C-alpha cells in the first residue's frame, strides 16, 4: 500500500521492520531513513547536518519544556496538560516542512510544533494556567489555537487550503490529529472535501498507538490508517514517526505538493505517546511497562542524537550548552507567566471577546459581575483579589492601559 512520494531527498527504505508491538502493520511498507542506532539505512545523507542539528535543538527544547510543564502541573502551578513526550520527531519533522505562509492547524498535543512556530513559552504556560491570554493569536501568524474536540480542526484546514487556492497564494495547510481522531466523522468529511476539491492539505496523523486507554486495535481495522487516503484520491504514506529524517522528507514533499496545487496527502507517523495522555491520566491502568520500555529504545531524540554524533555534528558539550540555554529560557518565561498571573488578572475580560463590540445586555452583566467581584479573589491561582484598574503588563502580554487609571492599584507582582 502507501505510495511513497519521497523522491528527493533520496533513500527511503521500504519496507522497514515493523517498529511497533502495538502497530499491527506487519508487511506494510513504512518510510524509514535512520535506524534506532542512528545509522543511515541507505544512500547519502538527505539533509545537511546543520539542518538536522537545528531540528534536534528544537526537539530537545520541546522535550525539556514538556517535562517542565508536567512538573509544574504536579506542583499545582498549571492545570491539565497533554505532553508530547516521545512524539518530537513526528512533530518537528513535519512542522519544519512548512513555511511561515503555510497554515499550522494543531490538535492539543503539538507543543513541539507550537514552539517551533515561535509560540512564546509564556503563552503556553498561561494557557496551562487557564488564562485565555495564552492563546492570543498574533494577527500575522498562520497558526491556529489548540483545538480540543477531537478531529474538528481537520475541516478548518480544508477551509484554509481552499482559501489559499482561491486567493492564489502558494501556501498549504498542515493539520494534526491522532489515531483516535480518525474514527470521527468530521475527519472523513474533511478528507473527502480535500480529495474531491484537490486542496493542499497535509493530514498529519500521529498514530501514537493509544487514544487515552483505547489501543489502536480497538480503534480501527488492522489496515494502515494511511491506506484510507487512496479512495479519497490522494496519496497516503506510512512513515516511521520517530525517524526525524523520514518525517521531514515525506512532509517536505507533501507540503510542496500542497503548495503547488497537487492536492492533499495523508501522512501516518508511527510513533508512541511515551507519557500520560494528559496529567489527568494514569497509563498503568491500561498498558504495561514492557511496551513502554520497548518504545523507550526507539526514542526519537536518542536516535537523532546518535545519528548526529556518528556524523560528528553533535557532542555532549553541545548537548549541555543547549540544555542550559533552554533551562535559562524556561526560568525567565515561567517567571513572566507567574508574574502575570499574580498581577491582578482581570476576570472581567471574559466579556470582552464574545462579540466584536459588546452588546448592552452583556455590558450590563459585566457591570453586575464587576460589582460581584470587587475585592474578592475570583481568579484561580491569583495571589490577591482582583481590583479594577490593577491590570498587569508582562512583555508581549501587555494589556491596554486600565480604563480607569484613578482606580486603586493592587495585586501582588
Amino acid at each position: 500500500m502507501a505510495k511513497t512520494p519521497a523522491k528527493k531527498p533520496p533513500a527511503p527504505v521500504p519496507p522497514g521492520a515493523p517498529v511497533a508491538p502495538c502497530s499491527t502493520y506487519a508487511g506494510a511498507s513504512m518510510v524509514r531513513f535512520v535506524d534506532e542506532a542512528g545509522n543511515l539505512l541507505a544512500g547519502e545523507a538527505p539533509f545537511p547536518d546543520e539542518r538536522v542539528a537545528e531540528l534536534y535543538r528544537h526537539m530537545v527544547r520541546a522535550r525539556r519544556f514538556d517535562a517542565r510543564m508536567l512538573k509544574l502541573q504536579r506542583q499545582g502551578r498549571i492545570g491539565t496538560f497533554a505532553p508530547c513526550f516521545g512524539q518530537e520527531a513526528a512533530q518537528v519533522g513535519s512542522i519544519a516542512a512548512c513555511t511561515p505562509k503555510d497554515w499550522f492547524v494543531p490538535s492539543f498535543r503539538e507543543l513541539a510544533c507550537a514552539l517551533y512556530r515561535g509560540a512564546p513559552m509564556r503563552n503556553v504556560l498561561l494557557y496551562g494556567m487557564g488564562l485565555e491570554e495564552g492563546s492570543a493569536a498574533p494577527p500575522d501568524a498562520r497558526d491556529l489555537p489548540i483545538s480540543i474536540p477531537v478531529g474538528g480542526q481537520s475541516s478548518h484546514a480544508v477551509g484554509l487550503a481552499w482559501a489559499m487556492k482561491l486567493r492564489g497564494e502558494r501556501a498549504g495547510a498542515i493539520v494534526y490529529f491522532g489515531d483516535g481522531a480518525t474514527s470521527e466523522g468530521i475527519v472523513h468529511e474533511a478528507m473527502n472535501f480535500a480529495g474531491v476539491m484537490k486542496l493542499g492539505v497535509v493530514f498529519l496523523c500521529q498514530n501514537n498507538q493509544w487514544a487515552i486507554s483505547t489501543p489502536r486495535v480497538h480503534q480501527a481495522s488492522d489496515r494502515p490508517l494511511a491506506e484510507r487516503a487512496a479512495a479519497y484520491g490522494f496519496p497516503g504514506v506510512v512513515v516511521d514517526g520517530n525517524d526525524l529524517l523520514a518525517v521531514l522528507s515525506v512532509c517536505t514533499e507533501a507540503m510542496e505538493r500542497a503548495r503547488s496545487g497537487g492536492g492533499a496527502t495523508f501522512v501516518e507517523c508511527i510513533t508512541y505517546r511515551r507519557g500520560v495522555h494528559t496529567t489527568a491520566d494514569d497509563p498503568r491502568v491500561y498498558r504495561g511497562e514492557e511496551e513502554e520500555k520497548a518504545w523507550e529504545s526507539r526514542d526519537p531524540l536518542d536516535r537523532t542524537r546518535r545519528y548526529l554524533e556518528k556524523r560528528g555534528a553533535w557532542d555532549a558539550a553541545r548537548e549541555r550548552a543547549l540544555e542550559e540555554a533552554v533551562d535559562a529560557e524556561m526560568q525567565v518565561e515561567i517567571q513572566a507567566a507567574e508574574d502575570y498571573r499574580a498581577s491582578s488578572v482581570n476576570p472581567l475580560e471574559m466579556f470582552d471577546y464574545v462579540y466584536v463590540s459588546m452588546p448592552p445586555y452583556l455590558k450590563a452583566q459585566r457591570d453586575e459581575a464587576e460589582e460581584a467581584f470587587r475585592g474578592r479573589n475570583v481568579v484561580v491561582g491569583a495571589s490577591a483579589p482582583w481590583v479594577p484598574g490593577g491590570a498587569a503588563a508582562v512583555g508581549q502580554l501587555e494589556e491596554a492601559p486600565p480604563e480607569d487609571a484613578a482606580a486603586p492599584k493592587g495585586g501582588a507582582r
Partner: protein
Amino acid sequence: MSGNSVTMVEALNRALAEEMERDPRVMILGEDVGVDGGVFRVTKGLQDRFGKDRVVDSPLAEACIVGASVGLAIGGMRPVCEMQFSGFMNFAYGQIQPHMSRFLGRTRGGRRMPVVVRAPSGGGIRALEHHCESEEMSYVSVPGLVVLMPSGPRTAYGLLKAAIRSEEPVIFFEPKSIYRAFREEIPVDGDPYPIGKAEVLVRGNDVTVVTWGAMVRKCREAAERVAASTGAGVEVIDLLTLKPMDPEAVMESVKRTGRCVVVHEAPRTGGFAGEIFARINEREDVFYGLRAPLARVAAYDVPYPLFARENAYLPDTDRIEAQILRTLNA
C-alpha cells in the same frame, strides 16, 4: 408589481448578488447551491454570474461545510454557507458551537469569524419529516453567535446584507413558509438592516404581542381581528434579532401595556418565550406594571408531525387570537 416588488426568495438572492458584487471575498457554498440554485432557488443564477469558484456545490456533509467555512473565514474569505434545511444543521452543531462561535474569544480577538450560515427553517409547507423544525433555541443559547430571523422580503434583504458584512458568525434562519408568500418593495443597493433592532409593526396600548419569523403575519392577522372585535390596541413587535438580544422595544411596550403575549413556532418547552419573560422579570419597572400573566403561544411539545397534522401542531391565527383575548381579559 414593480420590478422591485419581490418575494423573500428574490430579496435574499438580490442581497447575495449585491454583496458578492461589492466584496470579492464573499462566496457561497453548500449542497445544491450552484447549478440548481438551492432547493428553494435562493442562490439561483449566482453561479452563472459569479463563477464556480464563488458559488460552490459542496459534498453532502453539513459539519464540513461549516468547518470549511470557519477555515475559509480565517483564510480571508467571507463564506455564506447554506444548510439545506435547519433540521440538518444539527449535524454541524459540533462545528458551530465549539468552533465557529468561539474563535474570536479563543484567540482574544485575533480571529474574526465573518461566516453566515443560512438555513430555511420552520414548517407550514407540507414537507417531509425533519424539514419543518424551528431550531432557534439551540443557537440562541450559544454565546458568541448572532441569530437572525427575517419576516419578509424587506427584512430578509436588509438583515442578510448586515449578516454578510458582520465580523461575527451569524445563523440566519429563513422562515420557509413565507419564501414566496408575499411581495414587498426593496431598494437597489439598499442598506443593511441593523442587527439588534426589533421593529414595532402595529402600535397599541393594551397588549404587546412579541414574535418573529413566519409568525409575524399570523400575529398581525390575530391583532387585527382582536382590534376589530374589541377595539383593544394590540401592539405587535417583530424581534428580527434573536441573539444578541436587547429587547428595549419589548420593554418599552410592555411597560406601557402591562400585558404581553409571545408567539413562536418552536415547541413550547424551552422556547424563546421563557427568555423574554425572564428579561421582563429582570426589569422591575416593567414587572411591577404587569396587569396579567405573561403568556405564550407555541407549537405543542411533540415532535413536528408529518404534514397531515402540521396545521394542528403549529400556532395559528385562531390560537393566537384566543390567547390575546385571554390576556386582555385576565
